[in-house]
C-alpha cells in the first residue's frame, strides 16, 4: 500500500530544507528535496565593492564560513590578477584557517548533528530537552559503550570549540573570520603563534585518532546494515582544495560509478531551474553567466535550490567524493587510510557509497587534514610577506573553486566600473540536495533515498540517517506520497 509521510523540519542540519518522497509497500519510489529559505545573497552583492564579497559571503553559512572566505578570495584574486602572486605564507595560512574549520565542522557533524540517531543520550541524561522528543526503537548501543559515546558527545563540544580557538590565531575570530583577504592574509606567522597553533592542533589530532575514528568504527559495527543503505548516484565530483605551495591536498576529478576518473573542468557545470522557484530563462547556464531571479508562484517548482549538473549528470560532493577522488588518483596517505578501514570490515571501496561510508570518509578525511596541517605549519616563514597589494580593476572576471567541509564550493564574479556586476555561488548542498533537473533526474540526496526500505513508519530512522549523512546545510522535511502522487491513505509518521 502506498503512503505519505511528512518530516518537517528535519533538525540537526544547518538551515531550512524539505524532502518529499513517494513510498510503496514500505519502499521509497520517488523523492523530492527542497530548500525552504531564500535570502538572495547574489542579488544583495550586486553593486558592492568587490572586496566586500569576501566578508559578506562568509555569512552564507555560520558552520563553514571559511570555505566561502577561501572561494571568494580565490575569485577576487583571479579578477584582480593576483592569483600567481599570492605569497607562500598566505597560501599556507589560508589552508590552516580552512583546515581548522574542516576539523570543527566534521567533529560537530558526527557528534552533534548525526550521533543522536545512533546513540541513546536519553539513557544517560534522562528525559531532558533537547534530547527528547526523538525517534524510538533503534538505538543499538547500550550500557558502558553507550555511556562512553554520550561522554564523547560532550567532550567533542570542547574539541570543536578548540578548533575554532585554534583557527582564531590566524583568523581573528570564529564564526566569520577576518584573516583571509584578497591578496593574502592579515596575520603574520610569528613563531609564538606557530607553536601555539601546533599544540592546540596536537590535542585535536589526538582526539581524531583515538576517539573520533574509533567511535565511527564502533557505530559502524553496531549498524553495519547502513553500509548497504543510501547508495546514491555514485557519480562523484571534487573541485579540489587546499592549494599549497607544493600542490593540492584534495585532487580535483569526476569519478564515474565504475571508478573511472575524468578531469574536472568548471565550464562543464550548469544549473537547471525547471523545478526551482526561479525564472526559467536562466535554466541550463554556466554559473559565470547565471542569474538569480525568484519566481515564487512557478508551477512544478518545489525548491529554492537550483540543480547544478556536470555535463548534465547528477553528482555527489563531499568527503566521500574527495576521498574516492584521491584514492583513484593513488594518493599515498589516502590509500593507506581507506585500505586500513576497509580491511577492518573486509570490504571493498564500494561499501563507501552508503550512510556509514560517508561518515567513515569524513572521519578519515579529518585525519588526513589534521596530519597535513602539521607540515603546513612547519613550512611557514616568519619573516616573509603574507599579502600582496592590489587595485580594483575597472572590469574583470573571476572564479574561485575550493572545498568546503560538506563538498566543493564555487564563486563566480564579474566586475564592472569597479563594482560587482554579477556574483554567483554554488554550494555543495545545492549539488547534493538539488531538486530534479530539466531532464527529470532526481538530485543526489533524492537518489539516495529512493529504493530505501522504511522498517517502521512511525520512526523512519532510515530517512533521517540518509539525509544527515550528507551533512546538508539546510533544515529538512520529508514527505512520502503514494506512488501515483495522490495523497491516499495519508498518515503522519512523525
Amino acid at each position, binding site marked *: 500500500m502506498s503512503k505519505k509521510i511528512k518530516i518537517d523540519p528535519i533538525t540537526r542540519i544547518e538551515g531550512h530544507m524539505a524532502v518529499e518522497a513517494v513510498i510503496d509497500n514500505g519502499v521509497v519510489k520517488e523523492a523530492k528535496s527542497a530548500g525552504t529559505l531564500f535570502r538572495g545573497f547574489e542579488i544583495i552583492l550586486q553593486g558592492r565593492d568587490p572586496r566586500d564579497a569576501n566578508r559578506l559571503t562568509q*555569512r552564507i553559512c555560520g558552520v563553514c564560513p571559511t570555505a566561502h572566505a577561501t572561494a571568494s578570495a580565490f575569485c577576487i584574486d583571479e579578477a584582480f590578477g593576483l592569483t600567481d602572486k599570492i605569497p607562500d605564507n598566505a597560501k599556507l595560512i589560508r589552508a590552516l584557517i580552512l583546515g581548522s574549520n574542516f576539523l570543527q565542522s566534521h567533529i560537530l557533524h558526527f557528534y552533534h548533528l548525526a550521533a543522536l540517531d545512533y546513540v541513546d543520550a536519553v539513557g544517560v541524561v534522562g528525559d531532558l530537552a533537547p534530547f527528547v522528543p526523538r525517534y524510538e526503537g533503534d538505538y543499538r548501543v547500550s550500557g558502558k559503550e553507550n555511556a562512553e559515546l554520550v561522554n564523547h558527545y560532550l567532550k567533542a563540544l570542547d574539541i570543536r570549540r578548540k578548533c575554532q580557538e585554534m583557527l582564531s590565531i590566524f583568523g581573528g575570530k570564529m564564526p566569520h573570520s577576518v584573516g583571509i583577504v584578497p591578496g593574502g592574509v*592579515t596575520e603574520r606567522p610569528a613563531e609564538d603563534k606557530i607553536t601555539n597553533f601546533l599544540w592546540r592542533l596536537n590535542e585535536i589530532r589526538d582526539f581524531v585518532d583515538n576517539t573520533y575514528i574509533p567511535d565511527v568504527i564502533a557505530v559502524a559495527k553496531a549498524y553495519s546494515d547502513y553500509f548497504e543503505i543510501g547508495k546514491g548516484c555514485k557519480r562523484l565530483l571534487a573541485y579540489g582544495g587546499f592549494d599549497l605551495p607544493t600542490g593540492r591536498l584534495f585532487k580535483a576529478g569526476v569519478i564515474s560509478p565504475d571508478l573511472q576518473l575524468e578531469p574536472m573542468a568548471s565550464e562543464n557545470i550548469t544549473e537547471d531551474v525547471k523545478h526551482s522557484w526561479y525564472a526559467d530563462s536562466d535554466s541550463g547556464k554556466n554559473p559565470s553567466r547565471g542569474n538569480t531571479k525568484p519566481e*515564487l508562484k512557478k508551477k512544478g517548482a518545489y525548491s529554492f535550490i537550483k540543480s547544478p549538473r556536470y555535463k548534465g549528470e547528477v553528482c555527489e560532493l563531499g568527503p566521500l567524493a574527495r576521498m574516492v577522488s584521491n584514492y583513484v588518483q593513488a594518493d599515498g596517505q589516502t590509500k593507506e587510510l581507506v585500505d586500513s578501514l576497509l580491511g577492518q570490515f573486509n570490504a571493498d571501496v564500494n561499501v563507501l557509497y552508503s550512510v556509514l561510508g560517508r561518515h567513515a570518509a569524513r572521519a578519515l578525511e579529518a585525519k588526513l587534514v589534521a596530519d597535513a596541517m602539521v607540515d603546513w605549519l612547519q613550512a611557514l616563514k616568519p619573516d616573509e610577506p603574507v599579502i600582496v597589494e592590489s587595485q580594483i580593476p575597472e572590469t574583470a572576471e573571476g572564479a574561485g573553486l575550493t572545498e568546503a567541509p560538506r563538498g566543493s564550493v564555487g564563486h563566480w564574479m564579474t566586475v564592472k566600473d569597479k563594482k560587482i556586476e554579477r556574483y554567483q555561488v554554488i554550494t555543495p548542498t545545492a549539488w547534493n540536495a538539488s531538486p530534479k533537473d530539466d531532464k527529470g533526474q532526481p538530485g543526489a540526496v533524492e537518489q539516495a533515498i529512493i529504493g530505501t526500505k522504511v522498517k517502521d513508519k512511525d520512526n523512519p530512522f532510515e530517512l533521517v540517517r540518509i539525509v544527515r549523512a550528507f551533512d546538508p546545510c539546510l533544515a529538512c522535511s520529508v514527505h512520502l506520497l503514494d506512488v501515483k502522487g495522490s495523497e491516499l491513505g495519508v498518515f503522519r509518521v512523525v
Partner: protein
Amino acid sequence: MVWLQGAGCTGCSVSVLNAVSPRIQNLLLDELVPGQQLNLIFHATVMAGQGEPVIKVLKDTEKNRKGGYILVVEGAIPTAEGGLYGSIGERGGEHVTVQQSVEELGRNALLTISLGTCAAYGGIPAAKPNPTLCKGVKTIFNERGIETLVVNVPGCPVHPEWFTGTISVILFSGVEALDLDGLARPKFIYGQLIHENCPRRADFDKGKFAQVLGDPGCLYKLGCKGHYTYADCPLRQWNNGVSWCVKAGSPCLGCVEPEFPDGTSPIYEKITFEDLR
C-alpha cells in the same frame, strides 16, 4: 527557552557553542546559577527530534507556558510574499512561516532576545535591495502591536558571552534588571566604543596609520569602523580570548550596528563622521 532560526546562517548558534564559562554543556545540562536551570526545549540545530512532534512543542509552549518562556530569535524575518521566503515546518499541510512563528511565540513570551544583527535589525538579509523584505524582530513586534519586551543582542555573529551574560542578568536579578540603551541593547556590553578600548588607540593618537592590511598601526584608513561601533570586543576578545578582528589586523566591520552592512561599507574604505550624516 525556545530558539527559532529565521533568515540567518546559524553562525550565532555556532558562536554560542563556543562559550567557555559557562560552557555549552553547562547551558544544556546544569543549573546555570544555583537553583536556576535553562530548559532549551526547541533548537533546530541541536535537538534530537524532528518533524511534527517538535512543531507541536512550539504550539504547546505558546499555549501552556504563557509568560513562562524566553524566545530567542536568530536570523531576520522575511516578510515579502506573506513570509513564504522562510518557513519552519508545517501545520495542517501548510507551511508555517518564520514570521508567523515569531509573532505567535513572541506574543506570549516573557521576553524575546533578538540574537545577532539579523534578528535585531535585519542585518545582511535586509541589505539593499532587501530582496525578501527582511526585518528585525522589534520592527515586526511594533508593527503588530506585540508588547513583549525585546532585548537586542546584536553581532555578526553574537559573542557567546553576550548571550550568556544577558541570560545571567535575567536569572540572577530578573528581567527588570536589564539596563538597556536606546537601541534596546544591554549597556554592559554595548556601552563603549571599540575605539575607546582599542589597543591600537595609541597609534591613532600618534597619527600612526597602517597603509596596507597586515601593517602595524591604527586601521582607520583601511576602513576600521571602531570609531562609531559600540561593543566590548577589545576588552573581551573572541574565542576564549585568543584574538579579535583588529588584533588579527583586520578593520572592525561595525557588525553590531543597525547600519550593518550598508552603512558600514565599503568595508576597506575610510568612512568619516560626515559620511554617516
